Every structure is written in C-alpha cells, then in structure tokens.
C-alpha cells in the first residue's frame, strides 16, 4: 500500500555510473527515497517487479533493451508507477514512442531539477 505522506520510492535506471550515482544523490537530497538502481532495461524490469517503486527514472538509450522497451514491459505490471524517461535526445519521435510505451513524462538530460523532482512526484 502506498502512502501519500511518505517520500516517494524511486528506482533509478541509467547505464552511466556517474549519472546513476549523482542522480540518486540529488533525488535523495530532494527528500525522495532511492530504493534501487539499475544499469540496464532488463534489470529495471526485474527490480520494478520486486521493489514496486512509486516512480522509475529511466534512461532511454541503454545496452540490451532500452528504456522505452523497459517501460513497455513494466507498464502492464504496474499501472500506477510513474515512468519518467530521461533522455539525452530531444527528439519528438522518441517522446511519442515513450508515451506509447506508457511513460508518464519525458525529460531531456540537463532539465531543471525541479522539473525532474516534480515528474518523479517528490513535491
């Protein structure tokens, strides 16, 4: 059961270790609870099933299945999870694909932190 008064539980997925680490730190600094990190889409799908996070920050381009395919697999198993796509590509076509896959929001890397926190559901 998810409680609205507790910090959102977030799974961070990015193949770049530096981004993964600092993204986890900055989201934790914003009062969110980081429940797990993953470096590829397959691991993200598995962790989403076991951890049942409130939100998942997904990189789009990753080894193996990318973020969009991961979103496509996660969405049917958890209709309520917020899937935040975080991509290096500012590409409308990619954004449409992400939306079709069930993404809740699509942000470009380098976006304002407040937008990311808002998308994840921190405040």
């Amino acid at each position, binding site marked *: 059961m998810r409680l609205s008064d507790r910090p959102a539980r977030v799974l961070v997925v990015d193949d*770049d270790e*530096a*981004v993964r*680490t*600092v*993204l986890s*730190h*900055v989201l934790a*600094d*914003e009062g969110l609870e980081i429940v797990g990190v993953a470096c590829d889409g397959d691991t993200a799908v598995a962790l989403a099933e076991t951890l049942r996070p409130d939100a998942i920050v997904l990189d789009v*381009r990753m080894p193996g299945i990318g973020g969009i395919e991961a979103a496509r697999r996660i969405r049917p198993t958890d209709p309520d999870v917020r899937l935040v796509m975080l991509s*290096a*590509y500012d590409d409308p076509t990619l954004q449409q694909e992400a939306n079709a896959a069930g993404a809740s929001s699509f942000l470009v*890397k*380098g976006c304002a*932190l407040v937008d990311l926190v808002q998308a994840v559901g921190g405040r």
Partner: protein
Amino acid sequence: MISRIHRVGTDADSPSMVMAAPRRSRLATMLLPLLAAGGPAAGAVATTAGFHQYTAVGCATAIAVLLAAVGYIYRRGRRELAVVLAQLEHASTVESAEAARSSVAAGLHDGPIQRLTATAFTLDLLSNALGRGDLAAANDLAFRIRDQLGTEMTSLRQLMNELRTPVPAILPPNTAWRPQPAEVGYAPV
C-alpha cells in the same frame, strides 16, 4: 536459329522465302572474312554430324549472327555491370559516412552528454548544499565539478584529435580496406 534458316532455304513456296533470301545474301556478303575462315569448318562439322542439307554459307551465317548476339549481350552486360558497380560504390560511400556519423553521435551520447548531465546534477547538489549553509559539502562538490569538467575537456580534446586524424593513420596496417598511400596521396604517419 539454324533450323529456321534451313526451313526457309528449302521451302520455296513459302512467302517468307522471298523476303528471307536477299537478307541472307547481304549478311553473307558483309561477313565474307568470317565466312572464309569459319564457313568451311562449320560446313565440315555439319557434314560430319550428318546435316548434309546445310550449306557452309548457311552455317557460317548462323555462327556470325550468333557471335554478333553474344557480342551485343557482352557489351550490354558490361554497361550494366558498370552501372551496378557505380551504384555499389556510391552505396558504400554513403554507408561509410552514415556509420561515421552514427559513431560520432554515439560517442557524444555516451561521453560528453552523460558527463555534463552528471555535472549539472552535481551543480544542483552544490546549490542545495549552499542553501543549507553546508559550506564543507559545497566546497567538496565544487572540487568534484572542477574534476568532472577537467575530465570532460580531456575527453573532448581526444575526440577532436581522432576526428582530425586522417582515417588511414589511425587504422592498423593490415586492415583490409585501408587505402594505400598512393590512393590517398600522402604517406601514412
């Protein structure tokens, strides 16, 4: 083809005989050198094989027509082959350019964009630390950002050098498609 000539030559009542005979004569006249060389031989072969009704001139004419057809097909084939080779060369050039562009795009995604993303988030952390008045953490984060930018500049410099270096110089000598110095007009490093 030979059997058609035979039919025309023996069926005197056929209307086509009237039209075909002069054409055959013209061909024979035009191909006299060939007839001189190949006619007797072809006639001998035909006679040996039991086709006594064939004349040497008829056989030689047939051979000449056959050779002309082969020549036409050969020339046409060469032209078509040249076109296909040109198309393949163009496709190969386009493919190489696309591969290079994709490689640079992937390199930018996996390198500078990721590290700048990390740096941007670290700046957010620095901002939060300053907001809390945590100067020690802010100082640590400022040094980390400085390191990240230095690493990134080194990486970009390396990428620039690779892009500026001619392809043959950065490929191993035994690479199959490595252009030879004579082809590219300069000596490799």
